């Protein structure tokens, strides 16, 4: 619903009647489960400006930086250790994204 509110505000500002495309960043470490998202999306966009919009989703993979040895590595689970030194002293640098990136809209 947060997405729909953002889109409605942007569309109003741009005097748009139809949203043709929407681009979303959803990180793999974010709190979104894609099956649930797809289900909620189908229901949520009904009778809104987003109904029929093409949805482009960028799944951003998790990345972490080891605070011990400064090594950057892909992170599947937040409790994965650094593959170089085995420490859990890590900082998540990507994968938590949950963002509306852009819209393609059309006016009347």
């Amino acid at each position, binding site marked *: 619903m*947060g*997405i729909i*509110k*953002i*889109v409605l*505000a*942007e569309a*109003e*500002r*741009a*005097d*748009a009647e139809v949203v*043709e495309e929407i681009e*979303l960043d959803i990180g793999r470490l974010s*709190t979104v489960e894609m099956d649930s998202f797809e289900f909620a999306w189908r229901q949520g966009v009904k009778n809104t400006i987003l109904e029929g919009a093409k949805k482009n989703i960028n799944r951003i993979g998790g990345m972490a930086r080891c605070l011990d040895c400064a090594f950057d590595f892909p992170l599947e*689970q*937040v*409790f994965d*250790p650094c593959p170089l030194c085995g420490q*859990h*002293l*890590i900082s998540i640098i990507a994968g938590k994204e*949950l*963002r*509306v*990136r*852009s*819209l*393609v*809209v*059309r*006016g*009347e």
Partner: protein
Amino acid sequence: MCATCGCDTTTHEHFHAHGHVHDHHGSHEHGATTINVERDILYENSLLAERNRGYFSARQVLAINLVSSPGSGKTALLERTLTDMKGQLVCAVIEGDQQTANDADRIHATGTRVVQINTGKGCHLDAHMVLHAMEGMKPEINSVLFIENVGNLVCPAAFDLGEGERVVVMSVTEGDDKPLKYPDMFLTSTLCIINKTDLLPYVPFNLEKAKENARKVNHRLEIIELSCQSGEGLPVWYDWLNRKAGVAFSDQST
């Protein structure tokens, strides 16, 4: 309409600028236009959370978001804490549950100011609910505000309430792998309380394993083991509270 944030409780237009900018997109009446939005999906909650955080900071309130699965002992911990800290710290409580005012009644019985939020079908508190609960409550300057979230280790992790500290409670009657099964909550918390330690002799809970798992998820996480029944470990929790309150009460950031 709400005087504070302008909400009418169903539709929120708080942050929409209503100054229409009509001419930015050229004169292509029938052409498609790309808008770079770059906006976090939870931004509305984040903005309200920052508003709450500013309020807490200005009033030097230590706000603590208490999260856990149902039944880990959040309310019992509060009852014990509020009773033991009476006269030392001024406290208030916001209770979040789907239904009933049972927990608020329990807190009220300790002589503490309390507001109950019922989320209905909702599975978590959000910053907007807390903002409105505070309007009725107006926490005192130099006080501690406990916000007891809905018992749920999943969704509350995603919603910043504007708190200064997030305390996740787990109990020894749960699995010691809970931090790995519900990592987001442990990742976003600052303190983990392992509760009901008086039951350790009777359950197959590996305390060291649990602490190791929690630190795998979040190496910054502080951990306190305690029992609200025996009182074991409570002084460590009260030291932590006093230390954090001391910092909040001397907040010079505003």
